[in-house]
């Protein structure tokens, strides 16, 4: 590691990233905000007119909304992985990414939390989903995976928020010192009076270790619950026991891809090249390769089990996925998720930023399509051939999906300008 950079140099580099936003940043924020506003308007339109404006129909009751929900919860998993799991493994390269990854987790979860409401037919009765004591003496149905989702995603959001904030406190104190006037005062308050004396560091260390240990099982549990939304049903193509590990691997895969997508351009724009060396990015690429292999293996398992078990419904389902109405999306998914990442075996490609950036975009496209194929194909061709039907996303659904991307990127842009993008304290330790 290049430890020739002095401590104050690290501080000035990271904090200069937070100075007055340039025109590029403003246009980016404006565009993202516009997308998000468009998404909200479409959602209001859908509430006013009814679910009919969306493309979802009779056999295919779920469509783009649930795909987006699983996609965004998947993205959120990178934060926990990088900040908690790698912290426990004492991985050095973690410090380049953990702040960006944790921020990404929180914003992705905020976006993911919206979709269970958007896909509700009567969203003005959403409070039926929460188990508060009510005069009707009615509880929610605790056997329903949708209720598990409510608990899992909210727990995960809180833990990530606390984890992100605890990690941020020392950096806020540093930022407070460098800033004067109103902003400085705000940072001082936010850092909860962090003075950096020995006692505080002792507490901080212990707390951070506890939080990391506590967040690690979340990596596996939250996305397993999200996969159980499908696994507990009896629909061919959903009702398989492989879903939990398959979805967790998929989540980490798309999460790390999104980290790369965000960090690579950020590194160049905010010129933090020295602080995020190529070796660290190569380490992330290795994780990408590992999870891609797991996901590829899961595809093989899924199709293999269907034809091995000779279950009529499953065989038709997977034949339809590969050769049916949505076969193009299926093959793009296979290409993006299982075949292209194999190029990462080549060391030179692993270190070339351009290739990694393009690959990460493709991986996220692949992962979105994977969720789309799972959700839609299984519902399109299930038990009774009379009910087979196809599904075409409607403009409203696409608008709301773009709106969700708008919200995510707007939040990330705001984060970049208001909070230190890299963990200054950990960089110094390095």
């Amino acid at each position, binding site marked *: 590691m290049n430890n020739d950079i002095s401590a104050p140099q690290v501080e000035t580099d990271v904090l200069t990233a937070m100075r007055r936003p340039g025109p590029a940043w403003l246009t980016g924020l404006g565009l993202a905000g516009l997308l998000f506003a468009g998404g909200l308007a479409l959602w209001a339109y859908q509430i006013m007119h009814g679910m*009919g404006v969306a493309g979802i129909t009779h056999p295919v009751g779920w469509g783009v909304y649930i795909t987006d929900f699983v996609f965004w919860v998947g993205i959120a998993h990178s934060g926990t992985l990088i900040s908690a799991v790698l912290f426990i493994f004492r991985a050095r390269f973690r410090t380049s990414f953990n702040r960006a990854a944790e921020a990404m987790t929180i914003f992705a979860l905020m976006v993911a939390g919206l979709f269970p409401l958007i896909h509700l*037919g009567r969203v003005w009765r959403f409070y039926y989903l929460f188990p508060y004591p009510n005069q009707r003496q009615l509880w929610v*149905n605790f056997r329903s995976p*949708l209720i598990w989702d409510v608990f899992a995603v909210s727990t995960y959001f809180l833990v990530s928020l606390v984890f992100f904030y605890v990690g941020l406190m020392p950096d806020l104190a540093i930022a407070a010192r460098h800033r004067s006037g109103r902003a400085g005062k705000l940072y001082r308050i936010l850092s909860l009076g962090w003075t950096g004396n020995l006692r505080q560091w002792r507490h901080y260390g212990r707390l951070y270790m506890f939080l990391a240990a506590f967040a690690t099982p979340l990596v596996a549990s939250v996305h397993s619950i999200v996969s159980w939304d499908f696994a507990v*049903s009896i629909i061919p193509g959903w009702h398989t026991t492989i879903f939990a590990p398959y979805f967790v691997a998929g989540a980490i895969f798309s999460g790390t891809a999104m980290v790369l997508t965000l960090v690579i351009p950020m590194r160049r724009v905010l010129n933090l090249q020295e602080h995020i060396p190529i070796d660290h990015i190569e380490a992330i690429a290795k994780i990408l390769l590992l999870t891609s292999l797991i996901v590829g293996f899961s595809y093989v398992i899924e199709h293999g089990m269907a034809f091995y078990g000779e279950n009529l419904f499953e065989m038709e389902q997977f034949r339809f996925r590969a050769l049916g109405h949505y076969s193009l999306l299926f093959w793009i998914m296979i290409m993006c998720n299982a075949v292209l990442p194999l190029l990462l075996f080549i060391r030179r490609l692993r270190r070339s930023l351009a290739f990694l950036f393009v690959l990460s975009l493709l991986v996220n496209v692949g992962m979105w399509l994977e969720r789309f194929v799972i959700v839609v194909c299984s519902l399109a061709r299930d038990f009774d051939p009379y009910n087979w039907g196809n599904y075409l996303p409607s403009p409203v659904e696409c608008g709301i999906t773009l709106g969700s991307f708008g919200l995510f990127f707007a939040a990330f842009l705001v984060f970049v300008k208001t909070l230190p993008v890299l963990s200054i304290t950990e960089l110094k330790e390095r």
Partner: protein
Amino acid sequence: MDRRKFLQLMGLVSGTTLLSSCGSERNQKELISYLVPPEDGVRPGTAAWRVSTCSECPAHCGITVRLREGRAVKLEGNPDHPVSQGALCMRGQAALWRLYHPQRLRTPLLRTGNGYRPIGWDEAMKRIAEAMTASAEKSRTNMLLTGSTSGSLAALQERFADTCRIDRLPEFEFFNHAALRQAYQLLYGRPRLPRFGIEDADLLVTVGADLLETFISPVGYAHQLSVARREKGLQWSHIEPHLSLTGANADRRLTIRPGSEATLLLWLLQTLAKRRRYARRLPQQILDALPKISLARAMDNSGLPGSSLTELARSLEKARHPLLITGGVATAQLAGGQVALLGCLLQWVLTVPWQGLDFDRAENFGRAGDLRDLQQLNLSLQNDEVGVLIISRTDPVRHSPQKWRLDENLRRARLSIAMTDLHTATSRTTDLILPLTQNFERWDDVEPRIGIHSLIQPAMAPLHNTRSEGDILLELQQRLTGRSEAATYEKYLQQRWKKLFSASQLRAFINKGFVTKGSPRTTISLRTKPTVAALRRIAPSEPLPAPATVITGSIRSFDGRSAVLPLLGEIPDPLTTVTHGNWVTLSPRLASQYGVKDGEELRLTKTDFAVAQPARLQPGLPDGIFGLPIDSLTSGPPGIDPATGEALRVIGGIKAHPTGKHFALPILSGSPSQKGRGIIPKPIHRKGKHHAEHRSLYPEPAYRQYRWAMAIDLKRCIGCAACVASCYVENSVPVVGREEHLKGREMSWLRIEPFYDDQGRASFIPMLCQHCDYAPCEPVCPVYAAYHNPEGLNVQVYNRCVGTRYCSNNCPYKVRRFNWWQHKWAPPLEKMHNPDLAPRSKGMMEKCTFCIQRIRTAHETAGKEDRLIRDGEVIPACAQSCPTDAITFGNLLDPQSAVARLIKTPRTYRVFEGLGTEPAVYYLRPD
């Protein structure tokens, strides 16, 4: 005059006040008191039943109308009515949509340019009277053309015609069975259609007659068929050139080349005549007059293998009660007269000994004419001989060939008047339109068969400013002759009924809805001389050149008259599952020849006949045939058969070419084949691999008194979708229209799924919520909207549903429907809502509830008498309306109940039993 005063006049005091408004469900804010307390019946919250008769088609089935708060909300068959025995077809169930139709004519309309101006009744009557008197001076004749009329209205028309110097033209119906009637006239001198004794037959051979769709009395025949199959072991073979719902339900379906029915019947007659037993029944001159025809010629002419012909002849000989019926498509072609004659002759030989034909209870087509009379009318219109032309309850413009240009000729009449309740092709061309009161708003009686008088009784006060036809005629008579039979049509009815019935008969007539008066038993005898003359005239006919098109009657709209009802457009055609549209069917192989897929337009042309409709692939349809439902005919039939006056419905030598245009055809079936999933387990169950004996991890469901279950006998189900229409009306299921169907968002709680095997044989399965013991939809609903109640029902609590739609996704039968929109009911359709059911708003899931409102009412009556619900006390709307009693509903925990007994038969199975959902709907295998 309301019903009570009317009945008091008749000296019968029963029934209730007809107050319309009390405690209507819409605005719950007010409790509106009565003026006079009702003796019984119309009390808020309880239903009253009123007997009446359906007049959606000339069969006139008996119905009972369910009234809630003075509104008609449901129609059900009148249990012991001789025509329909308690069942009702799809069109009968949808008749309420005609009563509350938003576009119903509300006032008389006078043509101004090409638009219409509403005018008052007096002005309309004055104009008609003046026109009739004026045309008398100008040596023009006034004419009255009506649809099939019977009972008192026919008598009044007779009197009206005599007194007001107006010619009463023969009645015009498109399905007027002219060829058959002429054949009977020729053979026995009785121009009537006999009642066929199908319930006593042990072998039935139908040639072209679509018994289950549009032939004379479909519901009656369906019921007779199911009784004969159940008790007499009836074997039924159907001979037709194309594929119809009747053919699909026959035990054996012989597809012959179109136009070869005459030679086939001739060969059958000839082979039977060889046997002494039958030869005795025919006089010798007739036997000699029979033209000779060899088996080989019959074979290549009809396209059937020799074995099936001989086998058919042998079965006819062996049967003790054979019955042969021709009609429908077979007699509606150029050689139709010969087919009818030979068919009736064969009937004489086979059926008369065991009295299979009953001319004393003949169908009431007595005064029906045919298209030749219409041609005559067209001619007299052309040379301006017609003064006032009154056209009532029929649509000649639509059903006459394009080349006659009847619509322009109508304008040459001095004054053309159309009496109808909804706009038709004819009413758009006449000068004056008089709106008629609907079936449920007027007093009347009809005579579906000779001797059977069936009552039409008002269920509610007329909705709009309409009048009954009887009142119109009486007022015209009053204006023209200064004297009328009676002040109003009700008084006329009273006088006539008093003369016709004894006091006890009258009481039964009012309470039960029908009376059967005995008619003298007469025997029919064969008139040999005209028969021989006719036989000599038979020329050997060649089959029509392929490819041919067959114009079929539609079970959804009869001859097109019911197509205007939105509910009938919404329910899919049983064979093609297409809704809201027109189509032409062709076999898959023919389609690949033309290179067309579902929805691509195909243009059929022959000399002056041209039709272009989207194609629909129909497995089981012979290769050289295009099936055209009657609604797809945009310009009337291609021509008429000069010999019999029937419209030509089978045309050979058709040239067809795809036009390249593509129509989005709303097809509800995802795939015509079961793909080997054993939804209807034909003899070869899926590859024989049976699941291990099913063991469940779940606790045994503890039902205490009731476990509601249903048994559906697929052998009896004929796929007529009467149950689907009944379910739509009973549960106020919204009609969503074509665009929503294209997206696959139909709302029917119950659907008929047609599946075809590789030989193209169709079988139907009604699919509804199975109310499973371990319902996959219940554990996944986050808010307990899908909930299992202690009586085994899977209850859907509408106002608790949040709309995640996971229940619909997880249901293997996909029977749950989601309200994508807030469905609006155009006024006055919302009056048809069943108040026992909650209105569903957008965002709610809904599904079949085994008519829980009926179960609840049964619980309340049983609770009042402190007893359990008896078997058969709860009948869901679908089971009640089924003509063949295929659906049985009851309590599984009561071993004596019908459904429990049915479930023990070996044919019982359940759909997707292997999934372990333990459904409560047991199906009985069709084989």
